């Protein structure tokens, strides 16, 4: 492939653009290794003694040693990190499995109600999380409960104690359920555009050879739409990992995710910039890693999602 030569001004512009898009992230990265004194002191240069103290403060509840600059571990970041990981991974896996089955059915079969489902899937894509806040809060706390009057509720109360009703709010599953539902429309939409491209003759050949519908799906279709799956997985993970509002409404003390922790620490009067930056960096690292390794899939997914309209 032949590359064109460009004039120097063009490269200068490129450098400026790269600096603008990556600069703030780098700034946060650098600051997360500074002491608060250095950050507030206003020496913006790179001349400072890097320290991992901020990360120690943030992760104090999962460290195997006790950092000597801390008397008391107030920031339970490690636990929140694990919560975030559980919630994001579980919702990604569930969304993908369910979503790609649905997308396959929508593309390959003609059945009653297909158009309605397809249309409503597209429509609910635009629902913002803020709109779901009120009903989800109400339902998860009051309606989606195992009542203490029923057998199971009574058994849970006897075994684990508590007030009797067990509700979805405050559990990992409660948050996962919202995320799965929220991401499904988008995943179905993206995967549809990939499944359409799988040649029909391939599936028919497998059918002739005696494979059932599920075998055809798992052995023929799934391997062929891997790039689409990767893209859908990254987008789902990104949303589940980054989401704040619904998680803050549904989680309790033990199921807090990382974004909630960061927001809570931000709103306090005296912001400890170093620690906040370290927590922010920890939250940003998984998506950054994904982006660096799978940018091609992300871009394919983005264009497939938008162009299909």
């Amino acid at each position: 492939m032949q590359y064109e030569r460009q004039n120097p001004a063009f490269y200068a512009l490129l450098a400026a653009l790269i600096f603008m898009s990556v600069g703030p992230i780098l700034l946060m990265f650098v600051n997360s290794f500074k002491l608060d004194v250095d950050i507030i002191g206003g020496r913006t240069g790179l001349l400072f003694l890097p320290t991992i103290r901020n990360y120690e403060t943030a992760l104090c509840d999962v460290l195997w040693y006790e950092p000597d600059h801390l008397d008391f571990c107030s920031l339970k970041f490690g636990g929140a990190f694990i919560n975030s990981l559980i919630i994001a991974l579980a919702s990604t896996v569930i969304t993908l499995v369910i979503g790609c089955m649905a997308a396959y059915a929508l593309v390959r079969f003609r059945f009653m109600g297909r158009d309605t489902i397809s249309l409503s899937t597209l429509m609910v894509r635009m629902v913002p999380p803020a709109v779901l806040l009120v009903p989800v809060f109400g339902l998860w706390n009051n309606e989606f409960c195992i009542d203490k009057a029923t057998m199971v509720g009574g058994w849970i109360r006897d075994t684990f104690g508590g007030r009797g009703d067990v509700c979805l709010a405050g559990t990992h599953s409660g948050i996962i359920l919202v995320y799965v539902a929220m991401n499904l429309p988008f995943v179905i939409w993206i995967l549809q555009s990939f499944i359409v491209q799988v040649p029909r003759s391939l599936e028919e050949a497998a059918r002739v050879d005696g494979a059932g519908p599920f075998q055809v799906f798992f052995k023929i279709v799934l391997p062929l739409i891997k790039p689409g799956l990767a893209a859908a997985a990254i987008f789902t993970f990104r949303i589940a990992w980054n989401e704040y509002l619904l998680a803050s409404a549904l989680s309790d003390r033990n199921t807090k995710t990382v974004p909630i922790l960061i927001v809570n620490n931000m709103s306090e009067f005296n912001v400890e910039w170093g620690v906040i930056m370290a927590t922010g960096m920890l939250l940003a690292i998984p998506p950054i890693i994904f982006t660096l390794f799978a940018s091609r899939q992300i871009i394919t997914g983005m264009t497939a999602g938008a162009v299909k309209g």
Partner: protein
Amino acid sequence: MRAQTLNRATPYMFMAPAAIIMAIALLYPLGYMIYGSFRDWNPSQSIGESEFVGLKNYITLFFDPAFRESLSVTLTFAFVVVAAEMVLGVGLALLLDRNIRGMSVLRTLFILPMMIAPVVVGLMWRYMYHPTVGTFNTMLKSWGFDGIDWLGQNALLSVIIADVWQWTPFIFILALAALQSLPRSALEAARIDGATAWQQIIHIKLPLMMPVLIVTGLLRLIDAFKVLEVILVMTEGGPGLSTEIVALRISRTATEFRELGVAAAMSNYLLMLLLLLTVAMFAITRLQEARAQRAARQIQED
């Protein structure tokens, strides 16, 4: 016989899990919200105990200056942000649509901002906008200027800048993809006829990209109404109501003022607004498809 029933049931079996989950956790809550918006409902009571008040919540909101203010903030934010991002993104795409080494690295670096959590974006920018410690003001001061009160007097502008930083790459990537899939023949013909670079852009590239650009812009517009965390972390809606978008107001009404009915009615207003936009998007894509088909038929007939 058994195989046949199995085959007939297959699509439903594939569809069932998704349909059930979406019904339980998406459609039912939406219905619940619409039901709740007609009630005087606070978080300590269940919805059955709340009192039916008809359209009262909607009417109160309609005449509530604070809600109107936040609606206008939301609209300003969304339209300014999308306009700025479209101009910048498409401009950059036109500029960078060249055959250069390392284009894929460039694209990877550009999509980094939008993969990062909104909460983190908010905190980065809140630090950079900080009146005394922040990057921008230390820079301005070291050049001898006065510092700017970013998140105070210019809060909405600052929030808009942060969002433009995060989402311009989205438009850029999609516009670039559209550019690179343009028919080469049209561009070559223009070049042979002696069209300048500007003429090529205005008369050929932009019109051909238009269908993709419209859909991209509408998608981005719908997303701009969903923005919440960035603003929450940067300004918490303040100072005053200057950056309180509707999404933020919903969450405050529900948690601080404890008026779930009003918050539900507010959500419904927002939903109707978005529904309008989505329907517009559908109509436009349908129209475009129809036009493309007609054009194709005409070419065949000729």
